[in-house]
């Protein structure tokens, strides 16, 4: 309904006029209060015991009729408002939407070229919350030309939530913020036995996905569990241990202090799991909203913090099967020191030019069609119901 309610407010004179039409069915209802054609009969006795239940039925029918008529007029008003809005606010030229962050950073030349290309009337500065405003604009106003978005590449600038955009936007991203906020560096040593290599592969895939999205520079080393040497783990932030627990315990004392260990219990033989994915690619919610506590148990062993996953990684209901597993994993790895600020500076990933966008227009799904269908249904129903009214068999 966003598409139709976008500019549809009580301040709109057309909306007020449409509201006035709602009085018509209400008046009909009130004038129709004493329902039914009057028929004088010789003796009421024969009809009397057919009475009580029927009256409520008739009342119900009248309220239903009232509701249907109100619905019809409301739908009509909405459809007309939608049509008139389309007629009056059809943006047929290319449009540019500029975020305040971009406007602040842009040089005069860039602003000039923007103005030369689109003109002042086709350039719109977005206000917070930026992503929501952009989506509303795209769903409520018909755009016939291309839509260009000028922004910095920090996804945090778009507001707390940045969902996926369903429309082919032309992105113009400034890389400045990336330089201002250095990438997070994370050194991970993955220790896995041969049989648990599939789990390691999934973890690596998830880490790679999140690295791309969150501006994390991951240094990854993979070691076999058999030849594990604690001395080789200098400069490692995390050890992800996918091996026998006894071997780890024997090596714990030798680990450099402050090294975090993530321990995943062994899955039952033959367990498999869907591959790790990230939904809504290229954009996804970046707020650290996934509580990690249910998945984790922290213990201190030999001066090191050992995080033990409560459940195996593989298996039908394992966390790796969750669509937001990469985010959960990232949060586990970055938890304490990195808050929202760090995430919001992660880069906006724009679709590659080779991506095939569906051939859609703005707004993508005009509601008028459905509203008209609904209107016709309501109207037919109303006609049918009122034809059942006080008529005779000819």
């Amino acid at each position, binding site marked *: 309904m966003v598409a139709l309610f976008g500019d549809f407010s009580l301040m709109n004179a057309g909306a007020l006029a449409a509201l006035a039409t709602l009085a018509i069915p209400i008046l009909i209802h009130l004038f129709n209060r004493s329902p*039914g054609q009057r028929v*004088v*009969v010789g003796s009421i006795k*024969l009809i009397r015991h*057919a009475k009580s239940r*029927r009256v409520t039925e008739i009342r119900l029918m009248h309220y239903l009729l009232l509701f249907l008529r109100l619905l019809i007029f409301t739908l009509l008003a909405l459809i007309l408002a939608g049509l008139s809005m389309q007629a009056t606010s059809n943006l047929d030229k290319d449009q540019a939407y500029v975020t305040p962050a971009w406007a602040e950073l842009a040089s005069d030349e860039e602003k000039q070229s923007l103005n030369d290309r689109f003109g002042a009337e086709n350039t719109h500065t977005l206000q917070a919350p930026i992503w929501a405003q952009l989506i509303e604009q795209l769903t409520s106003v018909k755009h016939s030309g291309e839509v260009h978005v000028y922004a910095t590449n920090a996804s945090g600038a778009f507001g707390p939530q940045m969902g996926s955009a369903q429309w082919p936007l032309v992105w113009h991203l400034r890389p400045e913020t990336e330089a201002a906020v250095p990438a997070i560096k994370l050194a991970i040593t993955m220790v896995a036995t041969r049989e648990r290599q599939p789990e390691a592969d999934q973890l690596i895939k998830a880490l790679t996905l999140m690295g791309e999205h969150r501006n994390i520079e991951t240094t990854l080393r993979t070691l076999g569990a058999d030849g594990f040497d604690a001395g080789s783990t200098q400069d490692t932030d995390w050890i992800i241990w996918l091996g026998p627990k006894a071997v780890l315990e024997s090596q714990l004392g030798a680990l450099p202090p402050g090294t975090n260990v993530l321990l995943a219990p062994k899955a039952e033989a033959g367990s498999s799991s869907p591959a790790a994915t990230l939904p809504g690619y290229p954009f996804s919610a970046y707020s650290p909203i996934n509580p990690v506590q249910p998945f984790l148990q922290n213990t201190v062993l030999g001066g090191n913090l050992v995080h033990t996953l409560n459940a195996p990684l593989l298996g039908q209901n394992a966390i790796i099967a969750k669509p937001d597993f990469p985010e959960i994993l990232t949060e586990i790895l970055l938890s304490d020191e990195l808050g929202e600020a760090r995430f919001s500076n992660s880069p906006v990933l724009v679709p590659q030019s080779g991506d095939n966008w569906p051939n859609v227009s703005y707004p993508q799904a005009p509601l008028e069609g459905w509203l008209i269908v609904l209107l016709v249904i309501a109207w037919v129903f109303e006609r049918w119901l009122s034809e059942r009214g*006080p*008529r005779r068999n000819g």
Partner: protein
Amino acid sequence: METFIDPKTLARVKDMPLIAKTVADGFLHGLHQSRQRGVGIEFSQYRPYGDGDDLSRIDWKLFARSDRYFVREAERESEIAIWFLLDASGSMAVSSEPQAGNTRWSKLDYAAHLIATLSYLAYGQGDRIGFMALSSNRQHIVPLGSGDQHWSAILLELARVKAGAYFPKKEMIDAMLKSLQQPGMVVMVSDFFEHGTELLDLTKSLAVGKTELVAIQLTSADEETFPYKGAVRFEDAETGEQVLVSARNARDTYLEAKTAFQRNLEDQLLRQSVDLTTLNIDEPLDQALYDFLKNRAKVTG
């Protein structure tokens, strides 16, 4: 006032007799068989001359043959008294819904035509006729009489009858009923919708002795078929009580109640030995009358 007589109806029934089942005891010549023996055309029997017999009634030819005095007796055809009793209560003002813009006869209209035609037949065959229309507001009475002028008086009174409120209780009209309770025939036209038992009380008190009561019940097409749809506010013609029903759903209940009512009415009247004829006011009067008269002729044999 002649408007109550429809030429078509009259043409159909004018040669039919209106026959009472009970044997009449009247004196004047008429169409009804008389139990009294006496002067007449149809020979019945001879009986010996007795003191007081008129000498002119002696059959002299038989005297010549038998040398005895015989008096020739004939069956006398005689007239009877026929009362037309009309229920003029409010419910009789009901008519079916107008069809194609034409208003239809109310039960009272139909009854007026019916009584006009029947009384015409009765007066034509020499019976004495009387008319009574009863409602709680007003009573119209034309006493028994015969002849052209008397029939006109009945027509005049018929034209004046308007539907009143209720049918009067028996106590209210007891005095008037005296004149009905005499040998003869009472044709009672009503819809037989009653609030208490006023109508059946009346029939009970009339159907005694040598009075034959002919009950004619009037119904209408709408009452028979209940053709309403949707929300209908039914209003009682007499009490004004209103009932709002969804007609389509009420139809079955109504028809059931209607059948029960009819069955009960027939039972009650049968118990009183009253002959009930039901006429639909939305069907042609001539056919209904023809059937009615033919039926009566058949019953009488």
